[in-house]
């Protein structure tokens, strides 16, 4: 028995997971009545008609048909373009979020008073509903023109994605910067090196195990933030807009709304994979010392 399964084995497990979801979907569809299960006027189990739950193969075959009618761009091309558009904005938002989160964590680690002053606001910031701040960000942004730079709606979307993404980074990195043992901190003090060099030779490397989950959370948040903000700001071109648009044809073309959902999933997977690659690059810093 190996402790870590081979890459092929893990790939097979992943495929098995997807197959299981498809299996459950289709099995329910085959067994459950079209009208669902209703007890005393309350729907206990959902409807399984082709409109409510299209076959998985219909969802996929719909991808190769044109978006409307019989001519024009195919569905997969359209959602791929939208996915790339959303991914670009989400990546932009993620980067802003990571930079801001990191900066906040550094300031909070350096100055205890900053932690007391800022941390509650950081937590509070996440309780504000996105749809409430989206129009605000857009309005403020529209007043910004710096030189040749003009604020676009997609900038607002990126800012909102960053607004979600910075939170796990700030909290995770702060935790990570505080992770070194007292022994390690004492040792650096005996070496007579200052805060900055302690940061680079001790605190940053020690924060990596906390940083990676934070970056992954931030990536997921950035994607969700982008999709939701696209909807609330009304930005065309991304997955969010397509989800709203295609939902309207749910009854006439039930497989259609699933296409942008797949695109959103794909964007999320790409984002997660990117953070996974970062994790590989930072692997040496993920070792832990077994207590003596």
């Amino acid at each position, binding site marked *: 028995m190996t402790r870590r399964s081979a890459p092929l084995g893990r790939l097979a497990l992943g495929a098995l997971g997807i197959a299981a979801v498809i299996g459950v979907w289709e099995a329910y569809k085959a067994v459950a009545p079209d009208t669902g299960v209703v007890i005393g006027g309350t729907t206990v189990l959902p409807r399984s008609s082709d409109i409510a739950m299209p076959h998985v193969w219909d969802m996929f075959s719909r991808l190769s048909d044109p978006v409307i009618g019989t001519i024009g761009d195919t569905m997969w091309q359209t959602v791929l373009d939208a996915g790339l558009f959303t991914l670009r904005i989400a990546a932009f938002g993620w980067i802003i979020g990571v930079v801001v989160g990191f900066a906040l964590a550094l300031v909070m680690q350096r100055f205890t008073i900053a932690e007391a002053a800022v941390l509650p606001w950081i937590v509070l910031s996440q309780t504000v509903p996105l749809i409430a701040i989206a129009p605000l960000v857009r309005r403020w942004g529209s007043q910004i023109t710096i030189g040749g730079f003009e604020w676009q709606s997609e900038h607002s979307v990126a800012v909102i994605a960053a607004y979600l993404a910075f939170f796990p980074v700030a909290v995770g990195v702060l935790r990570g910067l505080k992770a070194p043992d007292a022994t390690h901190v004492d040792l650096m003090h005996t070496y007579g090196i200052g805060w900055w060099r302690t940061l680079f030779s001790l605190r940053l490397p020690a924060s990596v195990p906390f940083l990676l989950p934070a970056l992954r959370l931030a990536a997921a948040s950035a994607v969700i933030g982008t999709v939701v903000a696209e909807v609330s700001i009304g930005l065309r071109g991304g997955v969010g807009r397509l989800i709203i648009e295609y939902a309207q044809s749910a009854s006439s073309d039930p497989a259609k709304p699933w296409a942008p959902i797949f695109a959103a999933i794909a964007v999320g997977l790409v984002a997660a994979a990117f953070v996974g690659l970062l994790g590989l690059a930072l692997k040496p810093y993920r070792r832990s*010392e077994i207590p003596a």
Partner: protein
Amino acid sequence: MSSAVEVRAVSRTFGGRKGASVTALESVDLSVAPGEFVSLIGPSGCGKSTLLRLIADLDTPTSGELSVFGKPARQARVDQDYGIAFQQAGLLPWKTVTGNIELPLALHGVGRSERKARVSELLELIGLTDFAGHYPDQLSGGMQQRVAIARALAESPKLLLMDEPFGALDEMTRERMQNELVRICAETQAAVVFVTHSIPEAVFLSDRVVVMSPRPGRITDVIDVSLGGPAERDDSLREDEAFFRGVAKVREALHGVPVAGARGVDTR
């Protein structure tokens, strides 16, 4: 020649909330000669670790004077006049054995080739040459602690400060580490201030054992044990009459009364 450590009437009071304060150390005097091995022993809360931290300038005394090689403790720290080892090995998990040992050298800008030469010397000294490329999590507790000692010796300090470095090790490993420390000290000629809970450990290693008592932390007795040069300090010494006498003396000093049946050796 100035002494390695000179402590004059040093007190350390920790201020608690609402004016309640704890006196960790009260007017302590201590002098450690160059090359001398001095153990600090006493029950928890007697301030032995506090005293060590004061010498290391990890803490500052409330009153009194403290000098290391004739300089203020702070200057001695900045000049890297001492090496230090703690109860936890405190190795950086992301660095190899080599990387950990050369850490102080790298931080102080010593060149690559010089570092390499020094590390291989130290690896030989601690007998871990074959483990140069290993990571701390691949080493046993005793090996980690040996690496920590090598790191403390990296800059060839003339003073070694050790805060219960073998406290977390099992008894067998502990005795082996003690034998090695005797040898290392003989080779490096460094003075050592060694904090421990263990009477036999203190007696086996030390030229002098400083006995401390708590509330308030102070030195109650200093016992000369000098059991001979490093050549005579091997496992047979642990069964020697002189060793048992030393243990009995330290124990009496700790308990304040003569202890009947001095032959029984408490392992801690």
